[in-house]
């Protein structure tokens, strides 16, 4: 099961920019690129550095600490020092609003 969690209005994130989104005890980044909106885990996979101050170039987020780069569409690690891919999440846009799609725990 997935649930859609409201993040912000589409106009709240400029194109080629990133916004931090904390939900429950998790932290995420939501990106606005020329190809649309995307989301990933908030922390870089290299060291524990949040990507919220990173720079978005086309579809790439560059980590602010060591400038490791990820493709935000797939989470693929593109260049050293990052080697481990970033976990990504689906994003849906409805009525100018950005929603993050998260898996819900199965009810037992």
């Amino acid at each position, binding site marked *: 099961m997935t649930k859609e969690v409201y993040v912000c209005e589409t106009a709240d994130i400029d194109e080629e920019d990133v916004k931090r989104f904390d939900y429950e005890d*998790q932290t995420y980044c939501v990106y606005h690129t020329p190809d649309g909106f995307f989301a990933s885990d908030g922390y870089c996979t290299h060291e524990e550095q949040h990507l919220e101050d990173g720079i978005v*170039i086309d579809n790439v987020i560059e980590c602010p600490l060591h400038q490791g780069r990820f493709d935000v569409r797939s989470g693929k690690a593109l260049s050293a*020092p990052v080697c481990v891919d970033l976990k990504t999440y689906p994003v849906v846009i409805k009525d100018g609003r950005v929603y993050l799609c998260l898996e819900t725990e199965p009810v037992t």
Partner: protein
Amino acid sequence: MTVETFAATGAASSGITLERKTLKALCRRSDLPGLIYLGKWALALVISGYGVYLALGTTWVWLAALIYGTVLSVPVYAMSHETAHGTAFRSRWLNETVMWICALLYLEEPLHRRYTHTNHHTYTWHVGKDSQISDIPMTFPIWLDEVSGFGLIRSHFRILTQLAAARYTETMKSVIPADEFPRLRRNAWCFLGFYVAIGVAIGLGATWLWWFLVLPTLLGRTVMLLFTVIQHVEMAENSPSILNSTRSCKSSPIASFLYLNMENHVEHHLYPQVPFFALPALHRELKDQLPTPDPGFWRTNIEVLSVVMRRSLGRGTKARTIRQAPHMITDGGTAP
């Protein structure tokens, strides 16, 4: 991943703030400033190299080679650093191409440079964690080894041979993923092969390589190391604050050009994602939150040399014109 705080050394750990919109504008990447820089640098190399050509066969050749070597070596260092960060150009292929050429001239395998530089930013000037830290406190013999270039050349060739022989050190293993080592090893063999080929070519009579590449590189490295030695020396080790561990200096336009504005070194460590061409603007944005930069290149170096000599002679080590961590200042009588 769970929300938690992490204090790599940088703006946050130093209590420095900058409005997000301003930071984003400063981080904007472009190919143009880097390409203009490469053009000016090539012109400077041609002019200073012509000086070497004119001086060949006279004793002036050593001075000409020092000048040309400075124009060659300082930007090689600065560009290899900037491209290791990936901030020199917007186009990745351009950044990586320049990184490889500069790494070849800097004598360091480029991926090793990129990976090991990470802990210099995560743990800036932290003993046992920052692989670029020098012996603290600095004494005259250490200064001489560092500034002469012998220490760096020894270290670079040791690293290349260790990589080529797959004898990876604990430092390498701590920052480089295991599956990257075959690439580094292959690159190290290529680099060593290139240097051997240069040696053989000189031996076979291509003496121009000696006058225009090897000798200027050796001489210019000393000047390059005078730029780098003052980045952190006499500042506080193991501090979370970049303001305490790192030094910015005033600089002449020529020194700023050769060094890619890296005299704004505090600013670079606070926001390493800001490209070299935006560092002066970053300095202007932050200057009210930062200590006044130390005096220029020469005055700072002379002061550092004076302090390390006095330390080695067992005299007082208080510097008069540069910033210094309080525990670096002694009354003397404790010569190492």
